[in-house]
């Protein structure tokens, strides 16, 4: 199916410069920082809008009349490179075209989420004031999804409208702490964080410890600026479970990272841009996201994703309906549609991330048997046993850990 055609180096350079998924340049699009700061300042100036913000248990923050029946449309904001594209026209998304044919709902799809913090900062004040954000479906990574739900910004699903989702959500993603009853967040795609290795440059890397200390890798290793991924690995390497650790464990793990920074072992902390460096061989091994490395592997078979002995991190990006959306029912129809195993397989064949839909593997066999056997897209039992999920943090913990982590990586 939708294999990426190898690009010329020039074209890759241009693509590299474009903000891609989880880009490191959070504020590079200038005003970012000030937009958020301004938001916070505004919130502060107009009394503590957020103090004692109701959690999901306290009832909805605000109620909006659902006009889904009259207006057959939704606006869907997602991350770049996260939707199937027509081979001739990347603006056309076959699964969305089929959705419209099936339900009559018109989807305005925008890949305008580049960074969890940045996007959340953009919509937070409006949601807190119960104002519309002109979006009916947004996608956030687990930890930010937890914040979103905690602040009461996510609309609750109605069970009868998301029956397929309830039936087909992969067992490993059920009962997550921030959404135990699957009422607020539906995983769009999941992903694994492992070690990406360019075997043209170095021999195999088996463990996180090797990554941090092996002399021949000095200055040829990168880690991610995403704290949950990098620190998840550090916790694994000191023998702690990222799903259940103490602040003391975190500090011990951070010391290990600091030592690797001080010794010059770690060349940089990156967002998505490790992809080009790994492909070129400037870096030999790095902490990497599964979908990226699988796509690189199609173009260059020297590039591999290694499951370190210590384990791998699993994360999900979750679809959520903002509380102020007037098209919640339409949005739920879309969520349910993507939990149809056939549709999910079609999408997974394009984006190559971990598919959160049970039954999609059987459908994938019809599309591409190789991909159906790939444990990085459909984790098998052996893989399942190695997967860890970072524990949900409170806001105070998030701030403390992020503060320490960012200081350790030089920012």
């Amino acid at each position, binding site marked *: 199916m939708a294999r990426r055609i190898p690009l010329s180096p020039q074209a890759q350079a241009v693509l590299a410069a474009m903000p891609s998924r989880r880009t490191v340049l959070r504020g590079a699009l200038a005003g970012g920082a000030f937009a958020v700061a301004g938001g916070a300042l505004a919130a502060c100036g107009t009394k503590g809008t*957020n103090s004692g913000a109701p959690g999901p248990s306290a009832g909805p923050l605000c109620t909006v009349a659902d006009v889904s029946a009259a207006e057959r449309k939704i606006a869907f904001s997602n991350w770049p490179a996260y939707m199937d594209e027509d081979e001739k026209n990347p603006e056309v998304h076959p699964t969305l075209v089929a959705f419209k044919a099936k339900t009559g709902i018109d989807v305005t799809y925008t890949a305008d989420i580049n960074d969890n913090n940045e996007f959340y900062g953009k919509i*937070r004040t409006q949601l807190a004031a119960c104002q519309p954000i002109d979006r009916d479906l947004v996608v956030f990574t687990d930890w930010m999804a937890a914040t979103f739900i905690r602040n009461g910004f996510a609309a609750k699903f109605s069970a009868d409208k998301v029956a397929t989702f309830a039936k087909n959500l992969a067992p490993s993603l059920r009962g997550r702490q921030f959404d135990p009853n699957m009422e607020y967040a539906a995983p769009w795609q999941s992903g694994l964080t492992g070690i990406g290795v360019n075997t043209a440059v170095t021999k195999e890397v088996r463990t996180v410890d090797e990554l941090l200390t092996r002399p021949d890798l000095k200055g040829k290793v990168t880690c991610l600026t995403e704290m949950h991924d990098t620190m998840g690995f550090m916790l694994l390497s000191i023998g702690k479970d990222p799903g259940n650790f103490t602040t003391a464990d975190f500090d011990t793990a951070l010391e290990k990272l600091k030592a690797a920074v001080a010794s010059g072992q770690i060349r940089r902390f990156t967002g998505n841009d490790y992809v080009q460096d790994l492909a070129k061989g400037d870096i030999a091994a790095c902490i990497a996201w599964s979908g990226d490395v699988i796509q690189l592997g199609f173009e260059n078979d020297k590039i591999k994703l290694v499951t370190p002995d210590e384990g791998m991190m699993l994360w999900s990006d979750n679809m959520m309906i903002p509380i102020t959306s007037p098209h919640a029912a339409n949005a739920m129809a879309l969520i349910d549609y993507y939990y149809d195993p056939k549709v999910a397989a079609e999408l997974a064949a394009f984006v190559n991330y971990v598919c959160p839909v049970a039954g999609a593997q059987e459908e994938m066999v019809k599309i591409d048997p190789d991909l159906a056997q790939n444990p990085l897209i459909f984790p098998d039992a052996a893989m399942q046993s190695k997967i860890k999920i970072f524990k949900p943090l409170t806001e105070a913990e998030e701030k403390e850990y992020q503060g320490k982590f960012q200081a350790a990586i030089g920012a």
Partner: protein
Amino acid sequence: MAALLPTASGTPAAATEIPVEPPAGMRRRRWIPYALLAPGLLWLAVFFVYPVFQLVMASLWDPSGSVETGYTFTWQFSNYADAWEMFHVQFLRSLWYALITTVVCVLLGYPLAYAIAIKGGRWKNLMLVGVIAPFFTSYLVRTYSWKAILSDSGPVVDFLKWAHLLGPDGRLLATEFAVIAGLVYNFLPFMVLPLYASLDKLDTRLLEAARDLYHGPVRSFFRVTLPLSMPGVIAGTLLTFIPAAGDYVNAQLLGGPNTQMIGSVIQSRFLVVNDYPIASALSVMLMVTILVLVTVYVSTAGTEEVV
């Protein structure tokens, strides 16, 4: 106002009274300059004074607050001490990198601007376009392309290794050199353009006069050309130093964890850690430091005519 003019100048009586008391029309016209200033002042008030005021306020918030629980204003001056304690390394590093960048830009930019202005002849416009042309591409894209040029497997590193200027394990990316080189590249046009503007005005007959008075080329440069181009030098150094000190794109793309600048820290404190008080305190510190440095610099350089 046009309607008032005939009365102002029309009656001879009014004309004779001008030294004593200006006529109605003249008096009314006094507010015109203020009216013309108003849009600019309003703009500054809304988009500069108010945000800066808010920033200063935010830097004095109680750091134990958070985005979700709200912050309280407690005159928390210790935020500044904490910010310095945590990030003085990056802070001083930024000023140091900006200083090196400025010096290198002067050394590279002056001969370039001189060549364009004095020796450019009919190529002058073409050469100027050459200086400005990089602006047709986004700053970010240009910095990314430096990543490709300086990459470990790229031609620059290959050449330096061949010439034994770089060890077999040596690299340029993720080093101080790459960060400063990126800064110099990105800010060089801001140095060249003001230098060109002041050198272009240079009357070359003064150089001939200097030679007539037995000055050699070196002395006439230091006694005639350089002093006359000082406004350009000062404008150029300011336009280079100030943005370079606050830059974070080069440090993030071309540098490593040990070459990050204060801009990256402020960015990550604001957007990632959500620690607004420390981020604000760092921003205010950077602003005040640059303001003080620039004031001292401009007053010692002693020129009234900047730009």
